């Protein structure tokens, strides 16, 4: 086993990546779905064993093509990447298992093998970013996952998916190219591309201007990919018009991986040597995250299309994550990493519930899901419980990360009171927009709801699995907590 154990970081990317061409070749759509789910589950298993080995040995290194580190490409898995790997592969397996029945409604059967191949590539791309420790390699895999998610989003049945995905493509490519400019400038000044080598070389660089500009470009580029507040305009439409199962997968992890890269660059690479970097980083990120939280929740409150409402709520939740990070303290970072995990759980459960709803309700708008709870009790119960986790009711995963976030903001001085106020206000807004849906589903009556039938079992089981996971990690957040706190100390440990 130990021989295979050593190859795990590479296998994490290779398994989904090589199964994509196979999935494309299979003509029968059920077969390619089976292959895709198997590959995704296998990736999940690898992620779990990687996490276990990271927990006891604290990180793994893997030399691609066995060339020594700064020259060849090196893969590095540490606590933070393990945490994200769990989310990405978990969300993908969950969405795929639920995907079969929901996708048959949205994509013609002949095109499904291509769709599943694109899905596996998106998964491989995201895993590639999380696993690699080479600046340019991140760009390549970012492009793979980006292109694949454009294809996934473009699969949506609604014609408005196309302009949405075009805007997503343009903004995504600009983000990636900004990142490329940043890496180019760093390469210009340090001469290497390996992340650890850059950290080592940046110290010697005398002129600091290009490095500052590079930090600026990289942060803006990744902010664009991570839909941080002013640059989030592509997210609502892209998530709304994508197929339901794709939204489950993307909402849970695509922006999170960009945030992971942003954190890794700003804390590991730039923090040690750029003086008062954390001040600049906080000034850049704190106001944006506050705006994201308030605007995101406010718009979500008045949005009648359910998917767009949850998309806007994702914008707000990303605001939470960046708020935690912008406190630049171990507690803050732990809270933000934990919230990455918990938000992925809550949001995938919610979108899965919407996917169940979409089976029997034509347009996912609030007016036409009135009184549906009688016909679809299990789905609405799942939506309600996942909503509670999003709000942060105690006993759910959302509460744990909110608890840590408030604790972190409390001990960040006088500013803390304002931050706590914003967090509290926005969780109340979350109560409003979740309760609006629940109340309408349980108490109002519409005729369309009478004909609704309960969602098929294949779709309900993953939804309920996600909901129960929410509660499990609400009560026993041992694993994600330990991973995020060790990652936080790792990120901040860099400071000399």
């Amino acid at each position, binding site marked *: 086993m130990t021989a295979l154990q050593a190859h795990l970081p590479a296998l994490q990317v290779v398994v989904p990546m090589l199964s994509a061409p196979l999935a494309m070749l299979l003509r029968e759509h059920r077969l390619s779905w089976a292959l895709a789910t198997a590959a995704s589950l296998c990736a999940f298993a690898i992620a779990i064993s990687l996490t276990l080995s990271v927990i006891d040995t604290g990180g793994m290194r893997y030399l691609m093509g066995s060339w020594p580190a700064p020259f060849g490409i090196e893969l590095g898995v540490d606590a933070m990447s393990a945490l994200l790997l769990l989310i990405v592969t978990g969300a993908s397996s969950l969405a795929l298992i639920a995907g079969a029945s929901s996708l048959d409604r949205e994509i013609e059967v002949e095109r499904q093998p291509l769709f599943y191949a694109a899905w596996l590539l998106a998964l491989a791309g995201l895993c590639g970013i999380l696993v690699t420790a080479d600046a340019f390699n991140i760009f390549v895999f970012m492009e793979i996952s980006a292109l694949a998610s454009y294809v996934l989003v473009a699969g949506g049945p609604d014609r408005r998916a196309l302009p949405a995905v075009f805007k997503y493509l343009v903004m995504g490519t600009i983000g990636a190219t900004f990142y490329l400019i940043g890496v180019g400038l760093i390469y210009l000044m340090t001469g290497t591309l390996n992340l650890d080598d850059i950290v080592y070389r940046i110290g010697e660089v005398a002129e600091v201007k290009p490095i500052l500009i590079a930090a600026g470009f990289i942060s803006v580029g990744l902010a664009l990919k991570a839909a941080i507040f002013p640059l989030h305009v592509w997210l609502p439409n892209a998530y709304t018009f994508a197929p339901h199962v794709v939204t489950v997968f993307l909402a849970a992890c695509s922006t999170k991986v960009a945030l992971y890269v942003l954190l890794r660059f700003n804390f590991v690479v730039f923090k040690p040597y750029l003086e008062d970097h954390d001040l600049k980083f906080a000034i850049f990120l704190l106001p944006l995250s506050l705006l994201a939280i308030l605007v995101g929740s406010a718009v979500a409150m008045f949005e009648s299309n359910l998917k767009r409402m949850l998309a806007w709520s994702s914008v707000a939740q990303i605001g939470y994550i960046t708020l935690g990070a912008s406190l630049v303290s171990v507690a803050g970072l732990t809270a933000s990493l934990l919230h990455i995990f918990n938000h992925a759980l809550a949001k995938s459960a919610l979108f899965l519930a919407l996917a169940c709803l979409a089976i029997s309700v034509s347009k996912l708008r609030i007016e036409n899901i009135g009184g549906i709870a009688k016909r679809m009790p299990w789905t609405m119960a799942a939506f309600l419980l996942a909503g509670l986790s999003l709000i*942060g*009711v*105690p006993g759910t995963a959302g509460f*744990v990360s909110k608890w840590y976030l408030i604790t972190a903001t*409390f001990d960040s001085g006088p500013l803390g009171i304002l931050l706590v106020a914003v967090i*509290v206000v926005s969780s*109340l807004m979350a*109560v409003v927009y979740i309760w609006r849906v629940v109340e309408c589903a349980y*108490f109002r009556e519409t005729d369309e709801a009478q004909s609704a039938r309960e969602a098929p079992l294949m779709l309900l089981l993953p939804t309920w699995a996600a909901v129960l996971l929410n509660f499990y990690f609400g*009560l026993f957040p041992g694993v994600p907590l330990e991973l995020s706190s060790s990652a936080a100390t790792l990120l901040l440990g860099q400071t000399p």
Partner: protein
Amino acid sequence: MSASDSIWLALLLPLLGAVGILLAGRIGPNLRESVTLVTAGALAWNVWGLIPALMAGERPEFTLLQVVPGIEIAFKIEPLGMLFAALASGLWIVNSIYSIGYMRGNNEKNQTRFYIFFALSLAATMGIAFASNLFTLFLFYEALTLSTYPLVAHKGDRDTVNSARVYLGILLTTSIGLLLPAIIWTYLAAGGGEFTAGGILEGKVEGPALGLLLGMFVFGIGKAAVMPVHRWLPAAMVAPTPVSALLHAVAVVKAGVFSVTKIIIYIFGVEHLFSTPSSAWLLYAAAFTIVVASLVALRQQNLKRLLAYSTVAQLSYVVLAAAVLKPLAEIGASIHIVAHAFGKITLFFAAGAIYVASKKTELSQLAGIGRRMPWTMTAFTIGALSMIGVPPTGGFVSKWYILAGAFESDNYVAIFTIIASTVLNAAYFLPIIFAAWFGKEAMDGGKEHGEAPWPAVLALTFTAALTILFFLFNGPVIELERQLLGAVS
């Protein structure tokens, strides 16, 4: 069966009951009713079984799980918690009997859902009673809010849903808005949230900050219905009577006041609070609530709204007693919890019985009803007297102790408020009793109606008897309280 086993049994029983009811509900109403009663009985027996152990000074505790290093869901029985749990489990039996009669009489729809959530809210109440740290308290406090929402919104028509939304909105806003930050502040300042005798904020939070923290706690616990956050209580009147009984007398409101008292005693510490001037405002807030609520109750026409506002006033009695910060007053506070529970549940059962029998809800319609429903009206009178605090009833005992405490610390504000509110209570209860017994039957010939269904009447008389018995045999309760004080002073 060791004491700590019975703690998690106390939590588990209502949950098992809820599942049982769910299954039984499919088979038949009788089976479902019997499962409810059996569970209620078992819970009461299990909780009451703990009292002798507690009397002997034992403090059984039990840690369910450790959520995060430093925060865990843990339970510890202490006198105040024991009192509240015993009260809640006891009254659950009575309430179940009553609700069987009420539900059958009114043939309400989806009763299974009613009983399930009833059992769930009881489980949450047990959790609050036995919580040994702030986090567990907050966890079950939220669980109680969420499990009582479907009860309040039981009818499901438009205005019920709106007032249920007000109910949920206020409670969630206060809990997430004020209580959670307060708890986190305490966890940060005191390094933990354990309820320890003598309080844990000694020397950690001082001066105006302490007052602010106290404010966040008191107003954060919306269920204690201190004036500005009390609006949810009248709004919850739309619920069927057994639910209002549960809300006002058995679980929800009691949980609020119980939490406030517990936090004052076990987190702030009575002397610590007494010594800092910044906490004096609590006394004035409670006094203000009592007086204003009684005045508003005076003008109410609807019987249940009147009882609601009277509850708001009575709750602030307990807060006032706790705010007097004298041992005697603390005993008075805990006794008042019990006395008010018995009195108010009788009044609500009576109101419900009248509604079931005669569909009358307005005070003006109650003229001469005494002759038609003698049992119900006698119970109503006993309950009203207990509210006013006339000797043969329990209410007198608690007011006696609170007054004694107030005199001891010669706190004139408290004394004056208690006297004024007694007068006001009399002002709005006595006319009802007088009209009921001696008033003439309204001539429009309301439909002929006899007594309410027998289970309702049975429950009524039982609680009325309890109110009187409590006056005579309050020994064990006071002994329990003395132990509380022994630990505190």
